[in-house]
């Protein structure tokens, strides 16, 4: 395990001196949204349990989700979900062997950002229109 001090192996640059790029930012964002969604899924299970428990528990859950903090959490959840979904499809493309050249990587990266924004706005516009 111990690395010899005299080793002349190249050292990868430390993160804090590495210029942030679209590729690296999108990569870590995929991981962060994945962790955030894992936590956010607790809300989904809570909602289902409340529906299974009864009308009072369900009303409490709906009130919580319908509060300003609930809406903020739900909004963050939809952004994370649509980002992870879009970028996940990008990852599946890479897994199949497509889109590795740098211009394509940037093109699909911007497409993921556009899809995240578009799907989030669409979901909320339709959702709020149906509710009122």
């Amino acid at each position, binding site marked *: 395990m111990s690395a010899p001090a005299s080793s002349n192996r190249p050292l990868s640059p430390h993160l804090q001196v590495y210029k942030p790029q679209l590729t690296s930012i999108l990569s870590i964002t995929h*991981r962060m949204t*994945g*962790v955030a*969604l*894992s936590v956010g*899924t*607790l809300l*989904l*299970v809570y909602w*289902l*349990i409340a*529906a*299974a428990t*009864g*009308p009072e528990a*369900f*009303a409490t859950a709906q009130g919580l989700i319908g509060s300003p903090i609930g809406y903020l959490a739900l909004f963050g959840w*939809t952004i994370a*979900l649509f980002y992870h*979904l879009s970028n*996940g*499809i990008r*990852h*599946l493309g890479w*897994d199949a062997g497509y889109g590795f050249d740098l211009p394509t990587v940037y093109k699909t990266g911007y497409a993921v950002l556009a899809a995240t924004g578009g799907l989030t706005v669409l*979901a909320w516009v*339709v*959702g*709020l229109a*149906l*509710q009122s």
Partner: protein
Amino acid sequence: MSQPLRTTLGRVRGLGSAKEGVSHWWAQRLTAIALVPLVLWFVVSVISLAGADHATVRAWAGGPIVATLLVAMIVAVFFHAKLGLQVVLEDYIHHEGTRVTAIVVMQGAVFLVGLAGVIAVLKLALGA
């Protein structure tokens, strides 16, 4: 051609040094593919239920097709989350004992929450 260091049997088994092969990687991809339509369906359904009362949500989630899709989605979501969180913990926790403990605790928590979600859907679908 130089002689490979791996034994012939090791090459045939294809399990690598972790003795797991590509099962973790493959399961992560399969659950991802399954979740694309399931999650899109779920989001559209939840949006159409915005502001609905308890009876409506109960009737929706309790229908046999919706309940089936919900259980399938919950199983895929929590399996996918378990696989992803495991990789995150493996990457960032360097002390072996802490890492193994964290992974075991995470798996137990993910399993319990997922199970609670499945039971909630089954209760809605099967009455009581």
